[in-house]
């Protein structure tokens, strides 16, 4: 293809996105679009899968049967999200094995929030309420993103994430209205998860790369700082409603902006965790790589069996 032709294809491509048309797997797309989408979508899929670990940590110790069933179902939903996101990413010409390989070698990232430990039952509330809450803020705009398979996966995922968020809030509410010990447990969880949840919405706009291109492709519709403000404005009244205190002495309603002002985020901590040195980074990767390596003989056996079965069928047909 001549450069002229490519430029014309790119122009048509940009126009289609501007008209809100969806890009489908068989359509022509610029290489950069493909690569950027593989990166973002696989990172999202990995986050779902690694995100199963901190919550999976409490399945065996859930305090009641009802809570155990709800938690199992929630973690299973996350596995389902991982599954459709991996499938959606595969439409861009990368295999699930390659994506796993990138995760296991540290080439691909996942959401840093999952590198914090879940050390009490209240963390199941805080994670659902805040982490799924922040995820929704990030993801709702993606329901209209330009790449068809991603947009469709997000519609399904977002519905379930809102359910998770409500369920997490309900766990917190129950604790906050419970015994003094339960209330302390809830407050402690909020203290530990609040700042990492704010960080989840990404570095400040001044330090964020890729944003302009992502806006054009509708991979991003609002800046990180705007999303963060939206999250804070939405969450502070919820905390007030159940009598918990946001651990930020600088948090104050700003009448003029009709928004909350908030304190300084510790970006050193953010970058430390992103670079692999959070409290649980090594542990999470060990769990993922361990499950994958220990499962190799099972996957090999399933493949060998399928091949043998196929052969037997062919022999019978002859």
């Amino acid at each position, binding site marked *: 293809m001549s450069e002229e032709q490519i430029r014309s294809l790119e122009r048509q491509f940009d126009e289609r996105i501007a008209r809100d048309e969806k890009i489908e797997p068989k359509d022509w797309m610029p290489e950069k679009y493909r690569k950027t989408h593989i990166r973002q979508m696989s990172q999202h899929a990995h986050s779902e899968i690694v995100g*199963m*670990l901190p919550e999976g940590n409490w399945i065996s110790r859930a305090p009641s049967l009802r809570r155990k*069933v709800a938690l199992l179902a929630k973690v*299973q939903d996350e*596995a389902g999200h991982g599954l459709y996101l991996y499938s959606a990413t595969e439409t861009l010409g990368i295999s699930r094995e390659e994506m796993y390989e990138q995760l296991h070698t540290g080439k691909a990232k996942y959401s840093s929030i999952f590198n914090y430990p879940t050390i009490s*039952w209240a963390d199941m509330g805080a994670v659902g309420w805040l982490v799924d809450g922040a995820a929704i803020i990030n993801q709702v705009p993606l329901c209209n993103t330009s790449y068809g398979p991603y947009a469709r996966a997000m519609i399904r995922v977002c519905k379930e994430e809102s359910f998770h968020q409500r369920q997490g809030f309900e*766990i917190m509410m129950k604790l906050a209205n419970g015994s003094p010990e339960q209330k302390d447990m809830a407050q402690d969880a909020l203290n530990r998860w609040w700042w990492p949840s704010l960080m989840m919405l990404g570095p400040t706009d001044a330090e964020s790369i890729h944003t302009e291109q992502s806006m054009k492709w509708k991979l991003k519709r609002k800046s990180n700082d705007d999303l963060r403000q939206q999250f804070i404005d939405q969450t502070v009244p919820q905390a007030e409603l159940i009598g918990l205190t946001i651990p930020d002495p600088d948090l104050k309603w700003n009448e003029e902006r009709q928004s909350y002002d908030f304190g300084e985020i510790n970006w050193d901590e953010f970058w430390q965790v992103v670079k692999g040195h959070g409290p649980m980074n090594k542990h999470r990767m060990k769990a993922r790589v361990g499950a994958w390596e220990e*499962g190799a003989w099972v996957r*090999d056996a*399933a493949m060998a069996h399928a091949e043998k079965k196929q052969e037997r069928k062919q022999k019978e047909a002859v």
Partner: protein
Amino acid sequence: MKNQNLYNYILGIADNSLILGQRMGELCGHGPSLETDIACTNISLDLFGQVRSYFQYAAKIAGDGRTEDDIAMLRKERDYKNVLLVEQPNTNFAYTLGRQFLFDVYHLAFLKELQKSTDLTLSAIANKCVKEVSYHERFSSDWIKRLGDGTAESKAKMQDAINDLWTYTDELFHQTEADKAMVEEGFGVDVTRLKEAYYTEINQVLEEATLTIPESKYFQKGGKEGIHTEHLGYLLAELQYMQRAYPNMEW
């Protein structure tokens, strides 16, 4: 308690689902593939759903203010009545699936009989469970065939698991006092009558999986009387942790 036998009988059924559900739940997030992870979690979810129905019924019969959670989480080790088979650990995927398979074949046959119970609550629960457990049984027996017939490594692992777990199969067909009383009253299932068909079906799947049927005639028992393997205590330590550490609270 007026209905002590019925109460014990329900616990005998439900504890199997409770303990096996707990074991399957341990794997969530750690399966050999996403698909098997989801399937194992599903089995765990089904089993806990069944447990809730049984224990809600048992709580009603006990009528002393205890809830499903009290019954599930606040008994002493000796008061759990599950068979030894279901408390065996997730040594590897072959053990997990072997345990599941050896239990599912029994569980399905048992539920099909329980559907005929003259106790309407029990037969209604059995009706609901039969669908779920038929799926479990299909899933686990398919995997036995896959792993038995797969590679040399998977065959060896699957054979080891079956050999080790075999010793726990006979207990499934032992009758407790509560069993006998309930059979007499027409509420309960006579498990001794399920034994022959059980081994016929197990052997058929093992053969199809190109595995050897264990010949050992030495069996372990005790679970139904509350005498468990060393594994159960640790499982209960996790299951009961919150209820023990924070007594009398709502969650």
